[in-house]
């Protein structure tokens, strides 16, 4: 039977692996779609704008967002595994770092929308 240590390692590794593959595939797919569609690119754009544009650029934006969300997702898995292992304070630390990351995402989105 799998112990808490192995569960922690395997869970985080699985999230990191899946997140990376999904994100890179979305970015590559978006690039192919944008190239086939032709036309000029949108230039430097905020992520929210890219997602609104649709087409290949939206895929690229979604891929980049997925990539940046992969490390926080690994923290969620770590928090659950640590909680199950009885390491409550470490689980709380993982949740705190996750909250910091999400707060930075929300703050960046709000500041970007306001400017």
């Amino acid at each position, binding site marked *: 039977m799998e112990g808490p240590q192995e569960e922690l390692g395997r869970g985080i590794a699985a999230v990191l692996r899946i997140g990376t593959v999904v994100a890179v595939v979305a*970015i590559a797919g978006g690039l192919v779609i944008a190239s086939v569609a032709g036309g000029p690119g949108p230039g430097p754009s905020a992520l929210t704008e890219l997602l609104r544009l649709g087409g290949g650029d939206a895929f690229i934006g979604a*891929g980049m967002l997925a990539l940046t969300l992969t490390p926080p997702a690994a923290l969620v898995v770590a928090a659950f595994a640590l909680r199950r292992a009885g390491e409550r304070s470490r689980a709380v630390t993982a949740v705190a770092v996750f909250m910091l990351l999400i707060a930075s995402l929300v703050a960046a989105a709000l500041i*970007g929308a306001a400017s």
Partner: protein
Amino acid sequence: MPTELLLALSGLLAGAFGALLGLGGGILIVPILSLGFGIPIASAVGTSLVCVIATSTGGAAVNVAAGRADVRLGISLGAGTVVGAVTGAIIAGLLPERLLAGLFAALLAYTTVAMLRGSRGGGDPTPDESSSDPAAPDGPRAPAYRGTHLPAAVGGSFVAGNVSGLLGIGGGVVTVPLIHLVMRAPMRVAVATSNFMIGLTAAAGAYAYLFRGDIDPREAAPVVVGVAAGAAIGARLSGRIRASWLVILFAGVMVYVTVQMARRALGLV
């Protein structure tokens, strides 16, 4: 040749070189995009951070599954690097281009000297972020070490995050010595743990660049795909190529790039 293909090839080269030399790739990507393609440094830094996440998560998945990284320590220090990275990314948006170029030139010079000194000493030329060690903190053959000076290390990790968010690198140049020298963790544990932390750090910094509209998707996409592919190729090639040759070649490139970055900082190019 279309620009997208050139960007993808540059990313491939940076990813492969980075994996062969144990670097995240950011130290190469920013000068390539800035000097080679004329992309503004803020945009190059943002693109680099997204690339660094890809190389970190790919490598960390292997290190964490094998029990090489001290995940608990990485999470504890992550609080410092995340806050530092956000601060660095905000500051980067306020600094003039020439000052950023000057800071990056200083970082390049430091990294080149550290790499050459490490190589001459017969050790690893740089922290090898993909190296393996059967003895791991969470593994069955865990090395007997106790992390010391945690508050100081959290403070140091804030600095690492700050450098990452400001200059678009992973921050391993700060976190590896911090974990190894300050916290007394074995070198390979420090490298693997730093690799895990880099994803958290780079993600925190990348949000500011992504939502501020600094990143051009058509420029970033081929670089990210190229870097991810290059890192996988570099990892497979490592061990087949003599590291000493790579270090000499790499040092030559770094000296040239440092000079070019310094010239940009001084307004000469």
